[in-house]
């Protein structure tokens, strides 16, 4: 996976299918990415703040890691794994 740390715009749904938070789309470098599903979610910390991580797939099967910083409420694209 290519590591990044780019701030991105994200559309997310709270409370769908029993999940607290699920990204649905994001926009990166001017291009929209529609997400088909989240494969994994986990939480970590940045100091006292919680950071929520999501592994998600787009319609082409590429895998991305999105992070949501609960204190700053900023979404970042942390990594990209393109299908080869």
């Amino acid at each position: 996976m290519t590591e990044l740390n780019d701030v991105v715009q994200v559309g997310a749904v709270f409370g769908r299918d029993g999940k607290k938070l699920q990204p649905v789309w994001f926009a990166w470098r001017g291009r929209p990415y529609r997400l088909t599903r989240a494969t994994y979610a986990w939480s970590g910390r940045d100091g006292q703040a919680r950071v929520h991580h999501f592994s998600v797939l787009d319609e082409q099967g590429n895998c991305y890691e999105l992070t949501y910083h609960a204190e700053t409420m900023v979404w970042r694209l942390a990594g990209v794994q393109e299908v080869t």
Partner: protein
Amino acid sequence: MAETARSGFAGERTAPVAGAAGSSGGANPSGGGRAGPERTILHCDMNAFFASVEQEANPALRGRPLAVGGGGPRSVVCTASYEARAWGVKTGMTAGQARRQCPDLIFVPPDFEKYTDTCRRLVEIYREVTPCVECFSVDEAFLDATALVAAGHVPEALARRIKERIRGEVGLRCSIGIAPNKILAKLASDLQKPDGLVRVRPEDVPRIVWPLPVNALCGIGPRLAVAFSRMGVETLGQLAAFPVGLLRERFGIYGEYLHEWSAGRDRAPVIPSEEAGPPVSIGHSVTLERDVGERERQVQVLLRLSEMVGRRARAAGLAGRTLAVTFRYPDFETFSRHRSFGDPVDDSSLIFEVARSVLAATPLRAPVRLLGIRLSKLEPAGRQATLFPEAVRRRALVQAMDRVNDRYGEFSLRWGAAGTEGVWG
């Protein structure tokens, strides 16, 4: 023997599983001969945990040979996926060795936050079954299901329920061993991987456990296995039959424990993690990116290690009376030097001063590959109040630094200006 179950999972009967056999006679394993209800202990062991988590998170990695590790020349394999294991890749192999075994091996750097959070979710699942959960490691746990079984639950049904929940919640597989004690439960989970479910009853020990090699027992590593081999002991059955007096002479009280365990006896309770006592020691070590001979660079590494150890000690409310500094050469010769403090210490800068003095007093025959620091003889911190103004000011400064690092992340504020770039592995 089939038993009608009152399982709460739609009345399952006890299903025959590997190891559930009739009496073999003659053996006296299980609870050490003590009267009382037999315990039911489950050992849950996640299969290829780190690698499985990475494959679950990234579907492109599924079905491919994967090693979790740095991939660099100094890195070792933390965990290998089952696909990589089929090529002979094993935990602890260097990256170079692993690549020679499997040229198509994919390396993924470890993400310990991901694994720790997954472990937390697993523990929540275990606690749905019983509050008596002991985390043995990030990917293993013991559950005491004795009360549930006494109430009519079927152990195998409980284990299947746990496996289904784990598969549904995090998409991972585990092997579960069921036995009357922890040692046997852990042996049982090892017998079928991946995705196993094995029950070992006391009467199964001679047939299932005793043929196993001695290093199948938790607590017997490669060195001890060699020592036993020299004594003519290759299997757990031979160990169980070995005179306990001779084992005690050779290995002390540990020899007695090994004898008991090889016979399938173990009285150790499952201790819920929140009831576990304080750690025996707190330490950190690092394999450096390159072998370091420059004293100044070694000092920088010790400074960082001292900060890490001090932070953890203070966070735990502990202070230590003994410091060990560990050195490892490129040929893997490893040794430690110890120093004792007059008063217990949790201050990173004091830890560092002693570590630096140990380094200065230790002639090194070669650059070092690894450095480590360990604080031991721990006791609750703050037992000895100080009236010296300098010590009081220092304490306040350390506490202020800890608050900043708690708020903004580790090493936001630290002692010393020099970093560890280029040497910290």
